[in-house]
């Protein structure tokens, strides 16, 4: 997802300004010269200056080869990760991981059988490694009645 330097410069300036505005509301405790707002303000100033330098300093145009594939697939993968975060607790680790791995396999162009054949042993392996060996309390979710 590469975009024009003008756009990324503008985004940095806007973001820096937002950080600056939030940081200005942080109270400086009595007796101190510098408060919690100082470092965020420095970072914000830096972001705005760099954003301006990037935005005005460059005349690079947007890369023309930005095809639809190059934006939709990463977005789809991010959706998979977001779904993982949302479903992990209600559905449990095993079901969610299986779905996430299978979906990722499909995104990378594997067939359904291949995806299932990869996802199933992978989920079991990760369960053994993290749950059994490292004792990470992975959530069981829907499978709680069968948890061991």
């Amino acid at each position: 997802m590469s975009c024009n330097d003008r756009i990324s410069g503008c985004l940095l300036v806007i973001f820096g300004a937002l950080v600056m505005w939030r940081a200005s509301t942080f109270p400086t405790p009595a007796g101190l010269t510098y408060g919690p707002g100082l470092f965020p303000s420095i970072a914000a100033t830096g972001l705005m200056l760099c954003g301006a330098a990037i935005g005005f300093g460059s005349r690079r145009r947007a890369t023309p080869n930005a095809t639809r594939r190059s934006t939709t697939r990463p977005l789809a993968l991010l959706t998979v990760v977001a779904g993982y975060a949302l479903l992990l607790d209600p559905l449990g680790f095993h079901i969610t991981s299986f779905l996430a791995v299978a979906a990722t396999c499909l995104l990378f162009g594997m067939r359904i059988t291949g995806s299932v054949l990869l996802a199933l042993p992978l989920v079991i392996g990760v369960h053994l490694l993290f749950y059994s060996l490292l004792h990470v309390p992975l959530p069981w979710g829907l499978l709680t009645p069968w948890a061991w």
Partner: protein
Amino acid sequence: MSISSLIALFSPASLAVIAACTLYGTFIGAMPGLTATMAVALLVPFTYFMDPMIAISAIVATTTTAIFAGDVPGTLMRIPGTPASAAYVEDAYRLSRAGRSRSTLMTSLFAACIGGLVGVALLALIAPQLARVAMQFSSFETFWLACLGLSCAVLTSNGSVAKSFASLFIGLFIATIGIGVAVGYPRFTFGYYELFAGISFIPAIIGLFALSEILRSVQTRRSEQPTVATQESFSQALREAADTLRGFKRNIARSSILGTLIGALPGAGADIAAWICYAISRRFSSHPERYGTGYIEGVADGGAANNAAIGGAWTPALVFGIPGDSVTAIAIGILLLNGMSPGPQIFTQSPELVHTLYGAFALSNLAMLPAGLLVIMASSHIVRIPRRILMPIVLLFSLVGAYAITNSVVAIWTVLALGALGYVMEANGFPLAPTILGIVLGGIVEDNFMTSMLKAQGDLLAFFERPWAAALGILTLLVWALLLWRAARDALRRRSPASPKESHS
């Protein structure tokens, strides 16, 4: 070396971890598109459950071997497995096209082993001496050192100055999220209790270095399969590599020492060491015209230099607590999570940790030889493992690894946010290394600034009153001046219409 650290190093658990990490590092490094930093990022959740000594050995073994193994896809496919292999990839690839891939890789393996051993020997010699000086440092000096580390990260990154700085400030901003270190005020948490402790470090690096890599790879079309040319037999390759080593003894010695010293500079890591040593090798070679056309001399130099730099990079990390590259930045983060703060006092307070580190370096450089030979013999099969199988595995390990640290889905949202950020940044030419250094050093800079200001009651000139502080401060200001000059020069060059680069784009 003390008995206790020897026992710790040669305990079955430690040896098993080093052996496993050597194989793991070799494998990840040998996969095109999986970098050494990513190998460490995926390993970090496991180190969280280990004894700190073993955790450090694990990181050392993984990076050592991953940097060497980065030569494998570079040689066979002209895709450097890690950026540190990029300097001499052209030579290595052409040698492989001529049917000499195995002897090239073996040369690089042996050079890497020698470089790594020289690197750790120099580290063991230099670091304690430097630590003695650094013992006198107070918050003023540490503040300047951290600033210097941040500035060098910008100085040595390969993006434009403005973009490297922007990347640094993004990291510094991320470091300010959570309750402020000095005054205890929640910043940018928007009332979310989970953010009070700040952005968790491990999910952040997993997002920046692992998820962003997966996002990049899902975007590209299926990579072409390597058409591996004929390869030599094992014994023939071994004989040729030994001949090359004998012929270029002095090159390897020079690049090992130089690579260590370059690695020891804050902000400069294995990739820069390889580039510089390759250039120097060419300058002093009797056949400079053969460089870039498939000539082994540069491969021997670069291979030794990048592994030597790994040892060197630990010098500033151990002595000052200021990381030399993104891998040591991650390692420092792990030490901090384990309640150990790197710095000169670590040499007196926990010398066994330092000794274990040296030992782990030496051991993993030796363990790299069999693992490396194994990978060289199997290399043509390993680089053929398709991404569509590998990437879903990496994704699940990233997500579960991040979750294991915090036991909450906030970690997964962190991976998501920083993965998207890292992906968009790289796609637009923003280097990632300044961001990770900003995240690690941001807290150190702020902490030491606030402590210093409490001591000096807000007098900024106090930062120049102590002799070491003044020297470091002036050095930092000089680096800033250099960076500004470079930025101005860049801007002028880009503005001038006669620039040949601009007319093509």
